[in-house]
């Protein structure tokens, strides 16, 4: 018989990523009795090297082995650890585009959601986490993007990131990722929030318009499983665009839940240059092409030897190519997907089934994106670009670029994403929205969502800044509507 335990709190927050950690911090600071639960383990930034096998084991759900089904399938990554995606992403801090917010506001009838109305929440957020540009200049891959953009007269810019640069006594600069475990979570705990890691909420017990308690399985320090009943006054579900709808649907909340998953699918190419491309300065390149945003973003990816091998593995003579790996880097074309995916639980199984159709329009946008990426890299001095399409020819000059400008095939091509959104969109339009303008689930008095799942679509920019600003805005609205407490 599994041991059982009851826990009481005023506010339960499920999920400790940028949305959940921000919510927990603000509500705890306002004097609320907050319990933050996280399915994954609690690790520090230093526990695993970035983008390593160990990091995948410790911090990713299913060690990163997750796919959304469609033609082609899309490999997606979900973090599963205290701090969520902020522990594993590039930390790029990008303001959203005003026209994207305006479209969402009009299309979903969202109150108080213009860029001007959100700006104070971005500014407040930047006081809680360090957001900076690189103090000693960008790395080689970023410089290539800038050179190519300069040649083509395209707009390009360094995106600031959630990173701190500390001068050490030796004169070297130490870079520290400003993830949630370094920023919002310690601040939340300092303000009185309790954190329970390795605890998976199975379902919320409902009674008409209210959730009464959560049933969760928690692993204690001995590895023993304990069944918890967590009683609360209000619950915020912030488990991300896949796990939030999965939990709600398991609990019986299904209206517009998990019906409209959106993403930023990306395709990658490896490019070879005459110069060395590795100097350990920046990890993920921080410069992006701004010219075609929000519909298309061009940028660089983490490019260590194993990652280059992964993206070159479709090539017949991969070993020979990899002998020049120090002169190679990975670049991506990222689009705003137009297909709507679904999140559905499968009876008797833990994990939901994710379907994500890439539309003809998306595959055509990828063709355009690859073409422009090829233009950029050739202009930056690439001597060879390896096609991401199985059996596709490599690109050595402008005349070869035509082979990239095609509607992407439905198989034999690797599409991946780490940006997932909109599975429970917010707004006052009951015909398509799961939650109101401030995250309260329609039809329920004490169930709130506050993460990427409530965004109305794919923003066309790295989403962490937007997710944190929206979470801050919604937490403030919640406190305004509560009889006690203020920020």
């Amino acid at each position: 018989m599994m041991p059982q335990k009851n826990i009481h709190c005023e506010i339960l927050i499920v999920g400790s990523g940028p949305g959940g950690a921000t919510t927990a911090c603000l509500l705890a600071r306002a004097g609320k009795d907050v319990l933050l639960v996280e399915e994954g383990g609690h690790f520090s930034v230093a526990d695993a090297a970035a983008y390593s096998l160990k990091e995948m084991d410790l911090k990713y759900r299913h060690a990163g082995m997750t796919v959304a089904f469609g033609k082609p399938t899309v490999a997606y990554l979900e973090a599963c650890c205290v701090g969520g995606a902020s522990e594993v992403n590039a930390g790029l801090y990008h303001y959203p585009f005003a026209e994207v917010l305006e479209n969402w506001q009009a299309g979903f009838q969202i109150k108080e959601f213009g860029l001007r109305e959100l700006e104070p929440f971005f500014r407040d957020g930047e006081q809680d986490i360090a957001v900076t540009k690189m103090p000693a200049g960008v790395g080689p891959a970023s410089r290539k993007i800038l050179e190519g953009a300069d040649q083509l007269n395209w707009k390009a810019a360094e995106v600031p990131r959630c990173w701190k640069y500390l001068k050490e006594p030796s004169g070297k600069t130490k870079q520290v990722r400003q993830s949630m475990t370094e920023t919002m979570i310690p601040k939340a705990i300092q303000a009185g929030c309790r954190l329970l890691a390795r605890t998976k909420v199975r379902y919320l017990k409902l009674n008409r318009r209210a959730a009464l308690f959560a049933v969760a399985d928690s692993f204690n320090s001995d590895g023993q499983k304990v069944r918890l009943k967590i009683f609360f006054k209000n619950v915020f579900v912030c488990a991300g665009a896949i796990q939030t709808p999965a939990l709600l649907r398991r609990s019986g909340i299904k209206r517009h839940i998990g019906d409209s998953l959106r993403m930023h699918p990306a395709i990658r190419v490896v490019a070879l240059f005459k110069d060395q491309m590795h100097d350990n300065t920046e990890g993920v390149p921080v410069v992006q092409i701004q010219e075609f945003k929000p519909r298309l973003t061009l940028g660089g990816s983490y490019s260590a030897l194993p990652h280059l091998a992964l993206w070159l593995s479709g090539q017949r003579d991969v070993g020979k190519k990899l002998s020049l790996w120090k002169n190679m880097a990975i670049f991506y074309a990222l689009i705003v997907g137009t297909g709507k995916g679904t999140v559905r639980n499968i009876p008797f199984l833990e994990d939901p089934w994710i379907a994500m159709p890439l539309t003809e329009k998306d595959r055509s946008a990828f063709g355009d994106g690859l073409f422009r990426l090829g233009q950029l890299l050739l202009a930056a001095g690439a001597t060879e670009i390896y096609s991401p399409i199985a059996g596709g020819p490599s690109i050595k000059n402008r005349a070869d670029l035509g082979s990239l400008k095609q509607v992407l095939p439905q198989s034999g091509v690797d599409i991946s994403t780490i940006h997932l959104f909109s599975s429970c969109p917010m707004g006052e339009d009951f015909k398509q929205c799961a939650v109101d303008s401030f995250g309260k689930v329609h039809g329920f008095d004490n169930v709130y969502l506050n993460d990427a799942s409530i965004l109305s679509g794919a923003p066309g920019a790295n989403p962490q800044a937007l997710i944190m600003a929206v979470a801050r805005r919604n937490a403030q609205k919640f406190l305004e509507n509560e009889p006690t407490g203020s920020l």
Partner: protein
Amino acid sequence: MTKVVLHLARNIVSTLLEQEFGQDQHVLNKTAVIIVQRIRQMPKFLSWAMVFLTMVFEWSGFILSGKRFSSKTLSEQNEQIERWRDSRLSVCRDVVQFYEKMTVFIYCSLMDSPVTDRQRSGPT
């Protein structure tokens, strides 16, 4: 399962990487163990499908040539991988592609890591 994956990984490394990176038996064994571990870590429906397809791959050789994949010589194994890679069935191509990607990524990760990490007995 581990035996089939080890044979697959060995063949992929010898075809794609050996000339430039050599073939380290210890790293190869560890690569196979990690791939099997990764398959077990997948969502159940994916994991079951991968195990089933890997077994189909192993036994399909028996139907055509009287030998399971893991009992074949390196060149015979290579022929079978080539047949699956060029198959008209996308599921066959996907199986080979999956193992190629996993093998090169994990093998290169281990080769790229400090020697002490490589020689640890268990997976990372």
